[in-house]
């Protein structure tokens, strides 16, 4: 059996607010196996964004042990963290965050720009991914010419282009109507069915229902 994608042991995270330390995460223990589809649910202020930033290696914990894709994240410097994100994590954001001046295809290719281990035919792979989500006719378009659902599908292709182990989606349907949200969740489900580990952070129970495992976070503590 393959090793877990993500192991968190007794993770805490504190922020300085004024003169005092504010502990946002208070000892998180969490293991995510390969191929899981997990939803992390919580209200705003629960610490779910902080957890998502840690899991995405955008930030480092104050204490605890954190292994991602076999690497001890707490031992890595800024460049190594960037490399880890590049190879092992795909991000999907609530507001899509596509480059407005680049085409759909160029947007999907952005992560390949920073990839150390060169891969052949990234362009073909980008077109292939865009075809899978039904955007093969739109590769020369700019993001502003697309609907919200289409933009999010482009963002998912961007998240998948470097073939990461972990697909991390932060409120991926937060700015979409319920029908489009369903489409996006179906795309994520299909990615999971093809073997990707998917973690969705949401406050919406309907969205969380797509996941096979649901984790609640409240006041910096998780419960299943």
């Amino acid at each position, binding site marked *: 059996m393959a090793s877990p994608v993500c192991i968190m042991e007794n993770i805490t995270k504190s922020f300085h607010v004024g003169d005092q330390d504010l502990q946002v995460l208070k000892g998180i223990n969490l293991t995510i196996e390969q191929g899981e589809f997990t939803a992390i649910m919580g209200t705003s202020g629960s610490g779910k964004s902080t957890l998502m*930033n840690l899991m*995405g290696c*955008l*930030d480092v914990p104050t204490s605890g042990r954190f292994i991602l894709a076999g690497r001890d994240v707490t031992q890595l410097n*800024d*460049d190594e963290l*960037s*490399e880890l*994100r*590049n*190879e092992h994590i*795909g*991000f999907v*954001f*609530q*507001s899509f*965050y596509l*480059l*407005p*001046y*680049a085409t759909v295809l*160029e947007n999907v*290719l*952005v*992560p*390949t*720009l*920073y*990839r150390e281990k*060169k891969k052949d035919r*990234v362009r073909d792979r980008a077109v292939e991914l865009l075809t899978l989500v039904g955007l093969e006719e739109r590769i020369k378009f700019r993001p502003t010419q697309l609907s919200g659902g289409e933009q999010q599908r482009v963002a998912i292709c*961007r*998240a998948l282009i*470097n073939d990461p182990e972990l697909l991390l989606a932060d*409120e991926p349907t937060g700015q979409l109507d319920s029908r489009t949200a369903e489409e996006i969740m179906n795309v994520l489900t299909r990615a999971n069915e093809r073997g990707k580990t998917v973690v969705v952070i949401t406050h919406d129970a309907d969205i969380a229902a797509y996941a096979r495992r649901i984790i609640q976070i409240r006041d910096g503590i998780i419960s299943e």
Partner: protein
Amino acid sequence: MERFTLLLIQSFEAVKAFKLRTFFCLVSVALGIAAITIIVAATEGAYKKAFDIVASFGPDSVMVMSGSDEARAIGQREKTITLDDVEATRQAFPTAYIVIPTTWAGSVNVSYKGNRYQTQIVGSSSDYSQAWTWPVVEGSDFTDEDIRRYANVGIMGQEVARELFGDQSPVGKFVQVRNLPVQIVGVLSERGTSPGGSSLDNRIVMPYTTVMKKLQNESRYVVGMRLRFTDLENVDGRVEELKRLLRYRHRIPDGQPEDFRIFTPKDIVKFLVALTGSLVVFIGIVGVISLIVAGFVLANLFLLSVKERVKEIGVRRAVGARKKDILMQFLTEAVMITTAGGVVGFILGVISAQLLTYVAEFPVYFSWKAFAIGLVLSWVVGVGFGLHPARQAANLEPIEAIRT
């Protein structure tokens, strides 16, 4: 390689997308580079012209002129060099293969069959053409015999020849110089203008004996003399010796200024470079200031741009861009814009330099050097002033950047 291409493509897309930023940076860089281009071209032009003149003047040549610097400065033309000085110099310098007296009269009326013109009459010995490396293209030089006989003969510059004779050949014809009928025996080649801007082709060269006796009523003094030395490498030393000889002959006590002036090819270069120099300094200051202003325009617009593109930077960091990748991206955009500014500036510089030569006689010369200097300076501005905003972008915290 593919990654580098992708970086260039994306930077180019950004340069295209942020049009106002690109436009203002490009224009301000272009103006600075245009000024720099003109300077380089003017400097090169001045040197090239100076060396052309030295080549025609003769690098082995020395010209001695009558009169102190002070007298010349207030427009007095005192004659202090005598024919005896010329003869003594000839005796004293065995390596001087040419020593000739020169005298002249300006603004002399000459005419041929009703065509009138004002020209300069130059008196010289028979080796004028050789002394000035100035070929006679038609007919021939006058002879030593002409010198001895005070002959009424002359060789003509192209301009006066054109004015008096049109398409006809002047050789063998007689022109009136004041009241003196003078037979033209040769025509000099086209020479152009002097560094001071006057035409060199408007002159008639005659035996100095004839000019002195029949036009100037003068028996001793000439305007100057011209020497050429075979030992080119010793010219500086020879000039010093010549100075001492003439001071002695003119009985000038130590510490007193000379009543003559010796010109060498070096003086010509100095004169021309000084002439161009003031303009170069002026445009140079303008150019450097406008490049610095361009740099600040760029730095400010890029800082604004970084603020505007916080989300983009955050996403790039999230998908794996290292700090140096972000730094490179913004520097690439900056250098791309300034390079375009450099090219546009060079073209602007070429156009305005053409206008400059049109308005004023001003030597400009464009070479790859002007282009290369402009290009390198535009890169310096791009990297130098783009670095601060690029660092700001690179040091953004990714979680701050993508906070919704």
